[in-house]
């Protein structure tokens, strides 16, 4: 890891009349996996959407590779090499799995032009996608849709992967599949920013961690330090976490 790939400095975001983010500071080190934790409504999704330009920061800077991208439109942000998996997965249900993947691969004019070796690698991570390749994505189960959503984000190499709650509502076996997939992704040195409520999942994967509350980052550090400090966990994550112990 060498320095920050992404850094938010004092980011404020308003949604309509509501002031949601109150000066977010967040650093995502290059090559590592950063987990963004925090209770429901803390502002995690809003932070990710602000990075993607889906909400506009009203104040502060969003630095990607040192350049302020806060004012850029979403497609331009994506073209810098940032892939985004939204909380609702954003799968195009009328399109087949193949067509979903073909759209995610900007360099390919059609599915046949997707890099074959990379596709095989993705099928290795998520075997269900090979099986349902020609099926409309709307027919997939929740877990399979999540796999497709992540697969789309990695169909071409990207510098930064932003993933919002990839385990939400998934069965334990699928969560395990996701853990393995992200482990494999980490081996490829992709920088990842992951929002996660499942602390087991977060702890298994995270290098660094930031905890949000009420539109601010209230704690940032290494995952190892947080994982080893139950008192800190209690204070930061409270009862939401107790269930997992």
């Amino acid at each position, binding site marked *: 890891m060498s320095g920050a790939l992404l850094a938010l400095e004092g980011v404020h975001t308003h949604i309509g009349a509501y002031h949601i983010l109150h000066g977010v500071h967040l650093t995502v080190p290059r090559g590592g996996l950063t987990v963004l934790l925090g209770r429901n409504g803390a502002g995690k999704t809003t932070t990710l959407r602000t990075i*993607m330009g*889906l909400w506009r920061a009203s104040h502060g800077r969003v630095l990607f590779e040192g350049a302020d991208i806060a004012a850029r*439109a*979403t*497609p331009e942000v*994506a*073209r810098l090499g940032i892939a*985004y998996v*939204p909380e*609702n997965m*954003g799968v*195009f*249900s*009328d*399109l087949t799995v193949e*067509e979903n993947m*073909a*759209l*995610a691969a*900007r360099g390919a*004019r*059609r599915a046949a032009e997707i890099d074959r*070796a*990379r596709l095989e*690698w993705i*099928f*290795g*991570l*998520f*075997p*269900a996608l090979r*099986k*349902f390749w020609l*099926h*409309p994505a*709307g*027919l*997939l*189960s929740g*877990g*399979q849709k999540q796999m497709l959503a992540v697969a*789309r984000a990695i169909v071409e190499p990207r510098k930064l992967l932003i993933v919002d709650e990839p385990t939400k509502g998934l*069965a334990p*076996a*699928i969560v*395990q*599949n996701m853990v*393995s*997939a992200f*482990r*494999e992704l980490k*081996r*490829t040195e992709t920088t990842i920013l992951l929002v996660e409520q499942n602390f087991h999942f977060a702890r298994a994967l995270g290098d660094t961690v930031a905890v949000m509350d009420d539109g601010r980052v209230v704690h940032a550090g290494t995952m190892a330090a947080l994982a080893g400090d139950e008192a800190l966990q209690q204070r930061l994550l409270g009862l939401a976490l107790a269930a997992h112990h």
Partner: protein
Amino acid sequence: MEAPAVAPAPEALPKVRTDLLPLLLVPLLALAAAPLVGSFPTWVTLTVAGIAMGLIIFIIASGLTLVFGLMDVLNFGHGVFIALGAFLATTVLGGMADWTASQSLAANLAAIFAAMAVAMAVAGAVGMAFERVIIRPVYGQHLKQILITMGGMIVGEELIKVIWGPQAIPLPLPAALRGAILIGDAAVEKYRIVAVVIGLAVFAAIFWVLSRTKAGLLIRAGVQDREMVEALGYRIRRLFVGVFVAGSALAGLGGVMWGLYQQSVIPQIGAQVNILIFIVIIIGGLGSAGGSFVGALLVGLLANYAGFLAPKVALFSNILLMVLVLLWRPQGLYPVAKR
């Protein structure tokens, strides 16, 4: 890169399920009308006329429904492009009188294709200006959109009156396309066959684009989840302008075909057809090109059957059709899954 060794959870293969029920309504309507019409030859005549009319309406409506699906823009000014196409046809075909008077089918078709090409080019160009001047300032503001696009329609109609005059202009069919041919005992007007062939070709082209090209996939994806298309790195604004221009050009093409179908053109043609196409895209499911295809065929067939069986309620019949469809499927025949 190697894959991790994780046994995938057991998964059931989902059934590929295509919703054909709405499509079946088209033959059902045709069959239901047969005993009411009584005479088989008359039924054939009406059915061919209905399909021809339906395909023309589909050509006009397809762009409108995609424009709505992509950007939530309801363009009540779409009719301008229909009128523009129809009036351009009077000029082009008038100027090619030698070609249209010729008994050679090839010369006739060449004249029609020339009129279509001019109509599509001009309507597309005007569409681009319309998008920039009239639509773009009111994105996301539905009430303003309705008012200003209707205003655009009125201004367009007045401009057409300035150029072509306020009166009806005859648009006679080229010589070789006049009259009917007998299929069995049924008289089928030649032009309607031409309209069906052209309509099916345009239908095939639209569906080829939507299902086989990247731009088409992006359109379908954008209709469903605009934000995600942008997050994948595509500029949906450009895509939308492209769809708007293509939709305007298609409306111009439909205007030529509609004008020839009626064999006369009035400045109010746009407003008249507007009602039909809005019924069609609502029946079909806003944003669904496939739905507008089925909706257009239903509307075209019903208009012809009702026009024959009960001319007094013919106008009303399509509204009734819309009400019935919406009672069955409140989002239209093929609802578009929105985020």
